[in-house]
């Protein structure tokens, strides 16, 4: 019988990466780059951000060295996995030279190492939006197809995290092929490795592991409990969707709009925001034409442009659109929440607008 829980050493993790690469996967994982955690192709454990940890607060992000051997001691960088499956820019017509490859048809399937539980939930949400409807997006589907997901349960909570209240973390429950919990204690530096799929179980058989003891499972549970307990932020409880929809004309939108710069940072770092804008281009010299699809933002003035004017001309209506979409109307449109509690929109807002605080203020206004 194949094991559900095993213990992997850091060297074992290196073997796991190597086995994935040998199987033809392109392995992406976290790296420390330009003062932030980014996701990039990795060749082994040596590329992981060993001893880095992030400090996040509204409008602030800093990466600092801790000197510890921990590989996943950070929480989240600005960019999630969204840009891997739902690329920021894509040439639609004519297709980019080599797009066949970038569409995943000829390219190696992706293996993502270090998917946080909230990001796993974001992938599930984008799957629902972009490939579960009547017209699945073939560009998303081609990249997403066959991807091998390795979750890493959180061992710390950033000040901006609020996944516990959303039910999306800090421990992954499903949607992964493998899940890791990094354990560093008197027993040593090791990973509890859990399989979430047949492929995951098969891969475990290819790496050197030790059986997991009850004390390892307890240590992993303790990590998750500690993180849950450390999380200070949460969205208001109860029927939040209903409470928000009853306040569509609240004066509070104007209050937020006085601080919001409508820069759209929140939409760019959000792991579920999926909007795109299509532009046609023509080269006046060569006469060549092409059509580009790039991430859009409901904070753009022209996002709602309708011949002759904008439906959402002011920041208050645009902030309201983003907010109600995340927390209320996403349910109507896709039968799921649009927010996973990753807190990126709080960290990367240049003026530190906090979606959890605004939700509370809206309900009190």
């Amino acid at each position, binding site marked *: 019988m194949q094991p559900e829980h095993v213990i992997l050493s850091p060297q074992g993790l290196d073997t796991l990466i190597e086995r994935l690469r040998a199987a033809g996967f392109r392995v992406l994982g976290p790296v420390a780059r330009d003062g932030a955690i980014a996701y990039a192709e990795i060749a082994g454990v040596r590329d992981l951000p060993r001893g880095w940890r992030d400090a996040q607060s509204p409008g602030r992000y800093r990466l600092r060295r801790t000197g510890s051997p921990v590989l996943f001691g950070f929480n989240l960088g600005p960019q999630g996995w969204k840009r891997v499956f739902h690329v920021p820019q894509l040439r639609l017509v004519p297709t980019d030279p080599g797009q066949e490859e970038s569409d995943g048809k000829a390219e190696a399937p992706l293996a993502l190492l270090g998917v946080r539980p909230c990001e796993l939930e974001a992938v599930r949400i984008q799957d629902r939006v972009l490939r579960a409807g009547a017209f699945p997006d073939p560009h998303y589907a081609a990249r997403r197809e066959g991807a091998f997901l390795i979750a890493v349960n959180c061992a710390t909570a950033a000040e901006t995290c609020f996944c516990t209240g959303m039910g999306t973390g800090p421990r992954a429950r499903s949607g992964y092929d493998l899940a890791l919990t990094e354990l560093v204690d008197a027993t040593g530096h090791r990973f509890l490795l859990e399989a979430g799929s047949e492929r995951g179980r098969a891969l475990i058989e290819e790496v050197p592991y030790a059986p997991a003891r009850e004390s390892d499972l307890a240590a992993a549970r303790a990590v998750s409990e500690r993180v849950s307990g450390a999380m200070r932020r949460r969205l208001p409880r109860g029927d939040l969707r209903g409470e928000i929809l009853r306040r569509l004309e609240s004066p509070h939108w104007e209050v937020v709009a006085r601080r919001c710069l409508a820069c759209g940072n929140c939409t760019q770092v959000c792991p579920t925001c999926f909007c795109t804008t299509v532009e046609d281009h023509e080269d006046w010299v060569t006469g060549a034409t092409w059509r580009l699809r790039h991430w859009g933002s409901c904070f753009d003035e022209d996002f709602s442009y309708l011949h*002759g*004017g904008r439906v959402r001309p002011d920041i208050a209506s645009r902030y309201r659109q983003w907010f109600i979409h995340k927390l209320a109307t996403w349910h109507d449109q896709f039968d799921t929440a649009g927010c996973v509690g990753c807190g990126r929109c709080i960290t990367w807002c240049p003026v530190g607008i906090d979606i959890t605080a605004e939700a509370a203020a809206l309900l009190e206004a």
Partner: protein
Amino acid sequence: METVEDLVLGHPFFRDIDPEAGRVVAGCARNTVFRSGELVFREGDSADWFYCIRSGRLALELHAPHGGPIRIDTRGPGEVAGWSWIVPPYRWYCDARAVEEVHALQFDGACLRRKMEDDASLGYLLYKRFVPVILRTLQGTRMQLLDVYARPGR
């Protein structure tokens, strides 16, 4: 043969009116016909009448120095034309022209005003009939003012 009173009581503008009040109002009414193209009233003239149209169509026109008359409204069967008789100084503010043969009940404004002064409840009853028509027409005019079918952005 229908009497003028029957025609008044049968006109949609007076639908469900108290029969006694209907008889009083009908005392100021007579039947009239306008040929197609005939001027029914003219801007600035004394507004001595109003009309309940039974068939045909009237156009309300304003005259511009160039380009001729502009048709700003039309009144058809079941509708009422002419309110200036009810408000001093009782002068028409536009022209009315029959665009096809019009059969209408013509009410004598001075006659009705006298009866309304004598009997305030009759006055109230008639105002209750006129005000909704005036309001709806004003609302329609505002919609026309918005020019909703124009090219957007103009």
